[in-house]
């Protein structure tokens, strides 16, 4: 397929999820350097997660949805052409021609053009106000149209999976949503009458109006010429300010037709099971545009399998085949679990079904089993998809069905449940179907040293798709660790058998107020540098006043003990709080004068405040006396607590700002200042979507919208960056503060020691619905307690430096030598550089004139 010594020219048409997967599969096989790759995408943006498209209306941005790792194209030398559709293929010249006029030569061509929504050719289908639901551009157009004053109701034509997603989108846009389905029930392909009725009850309770057995005869225009109503056969018309078609998809095979490739009866490029076009070995097709045995697959998982087959073939492997697809689906539709797997309709001979139906709870679970063996063959679950992963594996024959099959059909909450040990999963059993990770590859990763969920995820990619398999991955991990004799110990150290979380609960429950009580009640020995600061932090989180009171002083790390940050030479830095980064000229002058008088090195921090370096222990009280006199207070840079709330100037000054981000940042900083937590906490507030405060790299990030604030959580910068997760949109001031209160209190209660919010949230399985549930719906029933935690903090907050300076005994601790309180450490030597002092370097000792 290539001239010897030259690289194969690979052209991929279509840069969607499957087209991009081909590239990552090639990259993983480390063969991309054998190819000159050009990818054409007609959309203006690179591949993104079309499955999660609806989250766009939950506040996700195009960036959030991207599936392309930043820098992928540059790293691998892949040429990505976005916003330029291929319009023609010449198979004899082996070229493709793009709309821009560019002509690209290929040795091998891969068609990954996907499909397009089918728009039924009914009268009025092209009126202004009619849309499809496929791309980010479509969604933006739907959003803009829905914002018109005269648009109050929306109709989705098609009651399948995507149609219901579209109906939810219209609901989130504030319209009255209608769904019109020709079949007698919703999701007719996946669900039977009973399951569909349960689903219908759920979504009707959310305000979606469902019309089944409904045939649209016409979409009628109003006086402005845009859509006004839907005319139905034999039923009343429905008012409609907007119509969204979701009546199925058609493979985009027009390029293939244009160059004479065979297409299937129902469309799609005809390929064999190696994904090679039947009549041209130099052309492959993958994803929704590929037709195998006349069938196209409209799901992403089979598309990924096809991409892997082609990547293997291009890498030189033979024998890779597409062996058919697992069409199981599990998703949350408008908050309702819906799953369908295996032979869901009992179409195989000698099968019968067992049904659990609880209309009160809206739960409908059906299992199809073999009449003779009782083995699970398939099923459908609505309202409670507990056990889905394992049931799916039973249906595929990868795990045996237990004796009591009836026990499987009831949900766990009703005494049923699928209690199958992860140990009984065979190595070939697929655990993560999005990323095609088997139990065997997970076990291998564990044996090679991946001993946490985070490590397993980055090593195998399991759970990085829909995340539905994470509970199973977790239990498999724990099982493997136990078998390997790896102690899954959560003990803090040799003095406490408890984890930080358990200790937090114990101290809170018993209302311990001192180290001695905690050690006597729960520990052994005398403590160490691990457990002492943990207990000090928990006691402080629970509002026990001055952090150096009583026996708690001895627990603190040196920074907390000196209320300053120790530097490499044993001197300290002084960081006054500058809430929101806003500082008056008088305060700036005061800090400048203090730094001048004490000869402190001065630098601006990343958190928009001012760090004064080079203070000796015995100088700290005198320096802080001056800082407090200038109207400033402790910045808690020394503590595991809130650092800063960074902000931009917002609408007060900025021509783009839509909210007063500075005032909000100051309010947040004053609210959470001094709050002791498992690790430091950083926040930021941006006044508009331009995000100048970089809120999405913070533990708590707030971004202004026209209507309020979007709340992001669990972001991180530093060595292990994590893009923050969107938790809620368009909150008003009070809603925002309450949500942050609960987020922080929940984190403080449940995180491990020295675990930032990012690591904590990953360990929770990055489970956004769970966190939203805890914060907004009180799903754990602890919202009152979380609110009370923050109320206690607000009641007991004090500036630790003000409290220190008020008490001569406290001030007396700040000496370098207890027998020479006025003496400085004579070995601290500073030299001058760029007009300021810095510590002498070892190699400079004895060679430079010391300044002090």
């Amino acid at each position, binding site marked *: 397929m290539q001239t010897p010594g030259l690289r194969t020219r690979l052209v991929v048409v279509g840069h969607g999820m499957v087209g991009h997967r081909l590239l990552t599969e090639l990259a993983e096989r480390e063969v991309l350097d054998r190819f000159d790759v050009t990818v054409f995408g007609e959309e203006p943006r690179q591949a993104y997660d079309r499955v999660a498209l609806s989250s766009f209306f939950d506040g996700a941005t195009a960036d959030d949805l991207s599936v392309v790792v930043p820098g992928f194209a540059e790293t691998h030398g892949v040429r990505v052409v976005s916003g330029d559709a291929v319009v023609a293929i010449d198979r004899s010249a082996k070229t493709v021609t793009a709309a821009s006029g560019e002509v690209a030569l290929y040795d091998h061509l891969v068609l990954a053009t996907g499909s397009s929504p089918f728009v039924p050719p009914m009268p009025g289908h092209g009126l202004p106000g009619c849309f499809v639901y496929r791309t980010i551009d479509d969604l933006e157009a739907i959003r803009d149209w829905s914002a018109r004053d005269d648009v109050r109701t929306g109709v989705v034509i098609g009651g399948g999976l995507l149609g219901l997603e579209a109906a939810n989108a219209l609901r989130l846009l504030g319209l009255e949503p209608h769904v019109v389905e020709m079949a007698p029930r919703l999701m007719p392909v996946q669900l039977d009458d009973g399951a569909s009725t349960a689903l219908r009850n759920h979504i009707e309770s959310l305000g979606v109006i469902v019309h089944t057995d409904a045939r649209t005869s016409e979409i009628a225009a109003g006086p402005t010429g845009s859509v006004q109503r839907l005319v139905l056969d034999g039923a009343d018309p429905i008012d409609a300010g907007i119509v969204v078609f979701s009546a199925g998809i058609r493979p985009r095979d027009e390029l293939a037709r244009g160059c004479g490739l065979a297409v299937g009866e129902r469309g799609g490029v005809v390929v064999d099971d190696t994904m090679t076009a039947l009549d041209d070995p130099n052309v492959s097709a993958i994803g929704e545009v590929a037709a195998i045995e006349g069938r196209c697959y409209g799901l992403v998982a089979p598309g990924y399998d096809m991409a892997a087959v082609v990547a293997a073939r291009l890498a030189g492997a033979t024998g890779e085949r597409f062996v058919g697809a697992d069409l199981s689906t599990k998703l949350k539709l408008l908050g309702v679990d819906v799953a369908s797997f295996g032979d869901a309709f009992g179409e195989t001979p000698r099968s019968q079904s067992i049904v659990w139906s609880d209309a009160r709870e809206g739960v409908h679970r059906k299992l199809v089993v073999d009449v003779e063996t009782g083995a699970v063959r398939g099923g459908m679950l609505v309202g409670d998809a507990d056990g889905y992963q394992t049931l799916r594996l039973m249906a595929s024959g990868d795990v045996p069905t237990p004796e009591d099959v009836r026990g499987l059909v009831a949900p766990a909450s009703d005494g049923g449940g699928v209690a199958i040990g992860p140990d009984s999963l065979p190595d070939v059993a697929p655990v993560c179907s999005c990323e095609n990770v088997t139990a065997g590859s997970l076990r291998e990763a564990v044996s090679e040293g991946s001993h946490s969920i985070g490590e397993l995820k980055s090593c195998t990619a399991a759970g990085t798709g829909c995340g539905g398999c994470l509970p199973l991955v977790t239990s498999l991990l724990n099982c493997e660790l136990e078998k390997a004799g790896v102690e899954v110990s959560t003990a803090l150290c*040799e*003095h406490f058998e408890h984890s930080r979380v358990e200790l937090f609960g114990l101290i809170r429950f018993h209302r311990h107020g001192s180290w001695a009580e905690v050690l006597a009640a729960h520990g052994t*020995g*005398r*403590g*160490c*540098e*691990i457990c*002492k*600061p943990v207990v000090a932090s928990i006691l402080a989180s629970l509002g026990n006043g001055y952090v150096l009171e009583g*026996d708690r*002083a*001895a*627990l*603190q*790390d*040196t*920074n907390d*003990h*000196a209320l300053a940050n*120790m530097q*490499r*030479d*044993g001197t300290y830095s002084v960081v006054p709080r500058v809430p929101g980064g806003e500082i008056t000229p008088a305060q700036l002058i005061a800090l400048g004068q203090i730094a001048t008088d004490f000869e402190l090195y001065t630098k601006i921090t990343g958190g928009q405040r001012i760090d004064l370096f080079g203070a000796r*222990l015995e100088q700290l009280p005198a320096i802080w006396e001056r800082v407090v006199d200038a109207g400033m207070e402790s910045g808690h840079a020394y503590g595991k607590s809130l650092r800063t709330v960074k902000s931009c100037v917002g609408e007060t000054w900025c021509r783009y700002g839509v909210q007063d981000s500075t005032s909000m940042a100051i309010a947040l900083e004053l609210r959470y200042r001094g709050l002791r937590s498992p690790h430091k906490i950083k926040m930021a507030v941006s006044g508009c979507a331009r995000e100048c405060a970089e809120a999405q790299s913070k533990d708590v990030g707030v971004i202004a919208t026209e209507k309020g604030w979007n709340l992001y959580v669990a972001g991180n910068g530093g060595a292990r960056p994590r893009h923050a997760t969107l938790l809620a949109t368009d909150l008003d001031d009070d809603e925002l503060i309450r949500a942050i209160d609960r987020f922080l209190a929940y984190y403080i209660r449940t995180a491990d020691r020295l675990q930032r919010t990012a690591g904590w949230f990953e360990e929770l399985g990055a489970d956004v619905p769970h966190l939203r549930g805890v914060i907004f719906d009180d799903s754990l029933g602890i919202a009152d307690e979380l609110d009370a935690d923050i109320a206690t903090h607000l009641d007991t907050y004090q500036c630790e430096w003000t409290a220190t300076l008020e008490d001569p005994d406290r001030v007396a601790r700040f000496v*370098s*030598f*207890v*027998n*020479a309180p006025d*003496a400085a*450490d*004579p*070995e601290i030597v500073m030299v001058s550089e760029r007009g300021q002092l810095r510590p002498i370097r*070892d190699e400079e000792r004895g060679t430079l004139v010391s300044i002090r």
Partner: protein
Amino acid sequence: MSAAQTIHDTGAVCRLDQLSPERGAAVLIGERQVALFRIDDAHGPTVYALDHRDPFTGANVLARGIVGTTGDRWYVASPLHKQRFDLATGECLDDETIRVDVHTVNIVDAHVHVDA
């Protein structure tokens, strides 16, 4: 207390009550910087003395570390990089090739005397 131990006394460096239990404090003895650690147990107070200088960084900071136990051994963890030093012997628990000097301490009439 034997005569030999008191001959080299430099005189008291501080009162016992100037030292907090399980929290170090530094004293200056001539040009020597010494870290003192007071540990109270059923037998009463004991004071240990080590060089104040952290051998890993050269900074005079050991008195400002957290004091802890492993088994029956008391140690201080350096506040800079957390290496642990046995209070009784000066041995580094994390690197057996490293040791800091220890000094004999006597408590006389609630005053602390260090043989440095």
